[in-house]
């Protein structure tokens, strides 16, 4: 049996007893990346030397008998949206292609403090906007279960690298489903923690009131391990919750007696793929066989979730992305070319005697902004910046942004009511298994519907996990979503672990 089949939790035990060193383990994964990533395209940046240096240092400290951190030598892949000091952080965008942050995100600091080996930065939709990772400015990521399929997005690289055994653990971010949908598509376990559970400091913002970093791994136990390493209050993130972080690794193996599961009718509507439907219903039966009580719950406002999300998130994005203006860092249009272009325009207008147009001409500053942003943002980013700018404009604010905020509260209230009666809400993560690359290129609205079942958790700020619960006739994994009340990650992990004790879907690997 290859180490690649071990879960992170198992690998940690091997590292601890000395059956394998961090260096050896890192080499194994680097070799795996070397061998497979050309076909998969999960990574944007792998720094073998950096990883091996870290691994060696950890091994030396272990040999010296030093107390090591929680992840003591485990390789971890990081979505390229988390700032890494001295190491390019692109967000999948031309805008930040050359951007080297002068600081580490809090999540990165915590990973380093936990003695993780940072093995590489993973591919993503540009600024985390998308559901297929096809919006990356640099490359496509292929689903290890079918190379013509998308791995999902925006954390497509993060999910694919775990599925293809190129990293035992990876950190993604989830704004509307960007951890859970790729986890479902790639047959791995991925969690979006409660908003505020994991620090956003150094997580390049897409939509600040939604963004949340979280773990992806093979099994719930591993997710517990990684979450424990990265969670916790952070004084430099005002929205980070000042609540104690439980030891997830200590509790994950405790089954929940009399688990109360809620099934929302709204999660089994039109458009749900038959294979997904039956796999999820089977999964519910597994829980019932373990003593879970299943009852119906209602989330009446969930039908507005997509519309609400696609107002608020672009509003925040339009402002968050204003800083990419070519002035202080990141991409800037070619100035000489820009000035020549302006001079040419001026000349033409002067010759034509068009005074009105001459007066309305861009200043060089405005033209620099215009060209920089036109050239370095991809179409989806532009679409959302425009949507958000429009919705926040004078005269539209109340009808769009303010109304969306009100609906957002109603969605949260639906959950508050539901969680009075049940511990967890169970349902599909996505309506379909992984779709084909290019399938939705011309149809942004269908792409937005990818978030149908996931986005409510972000609107409500609650915690949710996706875990594999079946394989369709086409041989593609199916994701089961469990949602929990805020700061109830323990319940999610314990329930997911219960399920993974009774089934082996999480151990299935693509060929």
């Amino acid at each position, binding site marked *: 049996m290859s180490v690649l089949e071990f879960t992170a939790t198992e690998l940690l035990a091997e590292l601890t007893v000395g059956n394998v060193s961090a260096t050896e383990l890192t080499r194994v994964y680097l070799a795996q990346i070397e061998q497979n990533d050309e076909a998969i395209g999960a990574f944007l940046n792998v720094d073998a030397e950096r990883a091996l240096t870290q691994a060696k240092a950890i091994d030396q400290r272990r040999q010296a008998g030093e107390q090591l951190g929680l992840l003591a030598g485990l390789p971890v892949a990081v979505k390229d949206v988390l700032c890494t000091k001295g190491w390019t952080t692109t967000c999948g965008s031309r805008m930040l292609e050359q951007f080297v942050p*002068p600081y580490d995100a809090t999540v990165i600091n915590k990973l380093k403090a936990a003695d993780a080996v940072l093995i590489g930065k993973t591919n993503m939709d540009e600024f985390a906007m998308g559901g297929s990772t096809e919006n990356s400015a640099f490359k496509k990521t292929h689903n290890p279960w079918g190379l013509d399929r998308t791995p999902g997005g925006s954390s497509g690289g993060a999910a694919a690298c775990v599925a293809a055994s190129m990293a035992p653990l990876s950190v993604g971010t989830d704004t509307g489903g960007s951890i859970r949908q790729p986890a479902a598509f790639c047959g791995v376990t991925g969690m979006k923690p409660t908003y505020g559970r994991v620090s956003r*400091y*150094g997580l390049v913002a897409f939509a600040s009131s939604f963004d949340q970093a979280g773990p992806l791994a093979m099994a719930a136990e591993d997710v517990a391990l990684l979450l424990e390493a990265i969670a916790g209050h952070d004084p430099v993130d*005002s929205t980070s919750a000042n609540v104690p972080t439980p030891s997830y690794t200590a509790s994950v193996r405790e089954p929940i007696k009399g688990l109360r599961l809620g099934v929302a009718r709204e999660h089994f509507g039109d458009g749900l793929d038959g294979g997904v439907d039956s796999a999820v219903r089977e999964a519910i039966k597994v829980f019932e066989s373990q003593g879970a009580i299943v009852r119906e719950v209602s989330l009446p406002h969930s039908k507005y979730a997509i519309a609400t999300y696609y107002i608020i998130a672009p509003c925040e994005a339009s402002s968050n992305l204003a800083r990419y203006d070519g002035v202080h860092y990141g991409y800037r249009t070619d100035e000489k070319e820009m000035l020549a272009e302006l001079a040419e325009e001026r000349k033409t207008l002067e010759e034509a005697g068009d005074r009105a147009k001459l007066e309305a001409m861009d200043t060089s500053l405005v033209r620099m902004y215009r060209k920089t942003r036109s050239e370095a943002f991809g179409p989806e980013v532009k679409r959302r910046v425009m949507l958000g700018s429009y919705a*926040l404009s004078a005269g539209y604010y109340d009808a769009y942004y303010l109304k969306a905020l009100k609906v957002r509260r109603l969605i949260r209230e639906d959950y508050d009511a539901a969680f009075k009666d049940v511990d967890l809400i169970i349902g599909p993560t996505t309506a379909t298994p992984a779709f084909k690359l290019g399938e939705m290129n011309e149809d942004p609205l269908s792409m937005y519907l990818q978030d149908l079942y996931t986005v409510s958790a972000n609107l409500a700020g609650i915690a949710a996990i996706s875990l594999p619960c079946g394989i369709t006739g086409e041989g593609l994994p199916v994701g089961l979503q469990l949602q929990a009340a805020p700061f109830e990650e323990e319940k999610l992990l314990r329930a997911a672990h219960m399920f993974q004790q009774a089934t082996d879907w999480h151990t299935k690997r693509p060929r």
Partner: protein
Amino acid sequence: MSDKPYEIIIGLEVHVQLQTQSKLFCRCSTMFGQAPNTQTCPVCIGMPGALPVMNRRAFELGLKTAVALNLDIPKFTKWDRKNYFYPDLPKGYQISQFDLPMSQNGWLDISDPKGGFEPKRVRITRAHLEDDAGKSMHDEAAGKSDSRIDLNRTGTPLLEIVSEPDLRSPQEAKAYLTELRLLLTYLGVSDCNMQEGSLRVDGNLNLHINTPEGQVATPIAEVKNMNSFRAVERAMAYEAERQYEVWCENKIKLGDSPGGHKTTRGWDDGRQVTVKQREKEESSDYRYFPDPDLLPVIVKPDEVEQVRAELGELPAAMRTRLETTHGIDPYDSDVIVNQGRELVAYYEELATSTRDGRRASNWVQQDVLRTLNEQETSISEFSISATALAELLKSIQAGDVDNTRAKDVFDEMVRSGMSAGDAMAALGIEKVDESEAEGLCRELLEANPKVVEDLKAGKTKAVGSLIGQAKKRNPNVNPGQFKDMCLKIVEGM
């Protein structure tokens, strides 16, 4: 003004830098005058992923000011993003407060002891906190069009204080600013240094013109770039005249289309004119929305009361108290209070120990302030303590020295650092013995029968020539006492 057929309407927006150690949303220093871009961090230069954390101290200073300006403090206030593009705004938005500011509906009383205008209460619409932008420096040297940006100032806490359009003249505008600056100085919330940009003023002005068809309003102009209160006064006066001339010419009213919209003008101090500024089309809609990176601030009523209790005595109350306690008039209390808390303390010590508030006031205003000006120093560094000066004033009261010679003593004290007594001795000033004075008096009366005659006829002024002669004989003769003595002797003749 009354001779002009219009009324001037002015509202002022004042931006005050709060005196904190660190910036509003990060821990960078706010110190002025450091090398460009040395006081920056990922947060204040808007690096990807960096997040703001509110500086509690800045909020407290804002709260203190708001309470002192009689503003209501809502229990709930939040932060909003004001979105616009400019190179010195690295985040692409300013963190400000839009619809739920930290304070609203207050006032500041202003008056002019010289009677230039009637005392009035200027309403204050709101005061809210926001972060400052950086500084753009345009290098316009030959052939260059480079701009340089210094982000040291970016993120410095600002309190924006917006008045209602209650001011009716450039003089009132200046008085409002002077009183506001004094209050801020008393509170210790800002150094109010206009040269360093820690106090900035924008003025909104238009006219209400009386016409046979009734009153009409001219389009509002916002005037920026005024670097002193004097500049504000002049700019407002200029702008009023300009608007009247323009109106006489084109008759465009506020709200007319085209031409009736608000415009932005800059004060050109060199040419003493306001100049129309280029309108930023992209800045017309700031797309305000609540900043999702920051939590709303909850202010408890007892917190506000605590701040109120700790404000200390403010200028308006202090003036009234000096007038009632020490018997000085509003003009004098104004001069003294306007000099700041330390001078007031000096004055009060002097007034209390000499029990003569007016004399103390005269000495402080004339001699002390004059000396401070000459020495370019402040009262805290002044070499003559209130106790030392009180000794001199007591000597005047005792008749040991007359007021005129006391000025010489004061100068000697300033020059040598001596006490009043020592300075008087050094100048040979000593009280003239009563019998000696009487002898001199009789002698001079005998020698001047004409004067005696005049005095008997009630012409008391005649004694003046005798005082002159007496002073020549003995410079220490106290003129008041000498006069009294002469009159007494003549009466007994």
